[in-house]
């Protein structure tokens, strides 16, 4: 595989990964619909399952990357410390430094093309973790003596890391509307209802399953490194812990993370979240669900599917919440006596092999993936 960028300092991704990431929401609005009256939770009208977009998850992940001190290009707010402009500055500087006389277009070999890309975009990508993961839109405009350079430069970055919009594994119930917000801004004495469209809509409980993928071939286009992929083993977990702090987002907790790293190039099983289900026998009826202790995840199909394809799996990186009950076959696994032990890990080991399963120690490992 020829390198897309001339940078020996990073380790390119060589394996494809498929990700399952589950979190739950208690009395929260995991993803409001901005076009509905009061930012109502998104709910599939036919199945009554709540929906959370990939855009929402990526915002959490970007905010966590930002907090961790990694550079992030797509931000929510203008930053007074000028972090944002510095990233734009990086690109501006590289473009100013680009000397058309240094490049004999038309005769560039692969290596020289990689050098050109590195010169224009390398520093920007190194400083923009979110672009390495999720890509970015851009346009390249070359005129005068720079005519032709655009043929050698990408016109967009496709994100090698993709997450599908997620659904809850079960129908959800919306809370009754209540007016704790409107009372604050009552429009007049004796008027309980002050504002308009300010009712607070939440779901009572939702167990949300995201499906993600790391494309090893797309990875080279954004300089996504092996370290970036390993960072994913702690990033979504900490993002849900740390970034769900606004009024409607509290009450969300990470419950299960699984990254299946495949052995063979170009191979992945696909649709791993479709192999997850609510264990209806061991959970309270869906409309009565209020917290994780009333919920049991059925991972029987997931574990047996991974087991059937064990020979194509390099490793499974996994972490489960100690209060999540997981059914695999006839057995219900719960946390063990020790932190870091969960019956689900043992079920996985049995299916794909002891050495294949690696339990993620979120906080220890997170420290290792911080910027230097």
């Amino acid at each position, binding site marked *: 595989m020829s390198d897309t960028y001339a940078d020996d300092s990073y380790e390119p991704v060589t394996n494809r990964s498929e990700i399952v990431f589950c979190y739950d929401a208690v009395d929260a609005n995991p993803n409001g619909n901005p076009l509905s009256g009061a930012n109502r939770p998104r709910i599939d009208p036919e199945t009554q399952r709540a929906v959370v977009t990939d855009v929402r998850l990526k915002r959490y992940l970007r905010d966590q990357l930002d907090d961790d001190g990694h550079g992030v290009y*797509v931000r929510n707010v203008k930053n007074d410390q000028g972090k944002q402009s510095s990233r734009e500055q990086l690109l501006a500087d590289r473009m100013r430094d680009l000397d058309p006389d240094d490049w004999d277009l038309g005769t560039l070999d692969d290596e020289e093309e990689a050098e050109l890309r590195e010169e224009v975009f390398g520093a920007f990508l190194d400083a923009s973790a979110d672009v390495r993961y999720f890509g970015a839109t851009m346009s390249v405009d070359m005129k005068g003596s720079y005519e032709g350079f655009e043929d050698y430069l990408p016109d967009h970055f496709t994100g090698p890391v993709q997450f599908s919009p997620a659904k809850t594994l079960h129908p959800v119930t919306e809370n009754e509307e209540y007016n704790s917000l409107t009372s604050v801004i009552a429009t007049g004495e004796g008027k309980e209802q002050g504002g308009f469209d300010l009712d607070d809509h939440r779901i009572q409980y939702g167990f949300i399953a995201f499906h993600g993928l790391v494309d090893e071939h797309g990875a080279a286009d954004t300089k996504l490194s092996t370290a970036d992929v390993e960072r994913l083993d702690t990033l979504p977990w900490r993002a849900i812990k740390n970034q769900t702090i606004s009024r409607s987002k509290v009450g969300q907790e990470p419950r299960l993370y699984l990254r299946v790293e495949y052995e063979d190039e170009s191979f992945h099983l696909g649709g791993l979240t479709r192999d997850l289900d609510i264990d209806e026998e061991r959970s309270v009826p869906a409309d009565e669900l209020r917290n994780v202790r009333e919920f049991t995840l059925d991972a029987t199909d997931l574990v047996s599917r991974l087991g059937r394809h064990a020979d194509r799996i390099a490793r499974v990186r996994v972490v489960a919440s100690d209060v999540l009950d997981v059914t695999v076959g006839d057995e219900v696994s719960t946390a063990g006596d020790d932190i870091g032990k969960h019956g689900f890990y043992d079920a996985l080991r049995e299916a794909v092999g002891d050495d294949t399963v690696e339990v993620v120690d979120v906080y220890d490992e997170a420290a290792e993936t911080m910027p230097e």
Partner: protein
Amino acid sequence: MSRASLDDGTDDAGAALPETCLSFELRGEWGHFRRVEGNIVKQTYRIIPRTTVAGLVAAMLGLERDSYYEAFGPSASAVAVEPIEELRAMNVPQNTLSTAKEHMTTMPSRGHARISMPDPTELRQQHNYELLVDPAYRIDLRLADDHLRERLRARLEDGTSYYSPSLGLSEHLAEVTYLGEFDVTPKARETTRVDSAVVEAVDSVELEPDTEVNVERSPAFMTADEGGRTTRAFQSLAYATGAEPLRVHDIETREVDGRRVMFS
């Protein structure tokens, strides 16, 4: 596009279509095939457009963007699409960064070599995306190019895909299941039930109670040009939203795996 023109064997690639097709199932939790005439509301086609099938197969094979349109041209390829689950969509509005020129930041602000990116500190635009929920199709694909066909067969048999397949947008991850290689048997003009979407024969569909029939006109063929690519032809597709077969009068069909389909 007449049916006959697809089989005359005098195509750009210089090879006749094989008498067999490769069949695979394509499904995902979400899909979005943006209707070209849409603007603020991002509506979706219900049937995966022929051009999207070509793009998806090209991604599986690792073909470069804008490099594969001839191989999927009208005489070099034939595609039948059968919806296998109810076709249903829901609205999923999203806040997105605008790529309109006035919302792009250009770096550096002066000079002849410049790069523009959406300004991430601008307010987001709200777009109402109509997403397909749990879309699933069976694709029967005939490719004249022996080399491409064999590469695709190897990929399907092995369950591999160079770039990861998706349904319209890259975040709508897709699952591909190989069903096998099947004979394609031409059938004389007749009235019959058609399992695939009905191609360019909307007026011949017999409407029946309890079967909701829709028609959409979607891109069928593309060609590479200076600016990237252009849609060369559209086609009209009729389908039942409940994914049932449609009864169609006086049409030519093909039999594949005990089913009746129409290729385009």
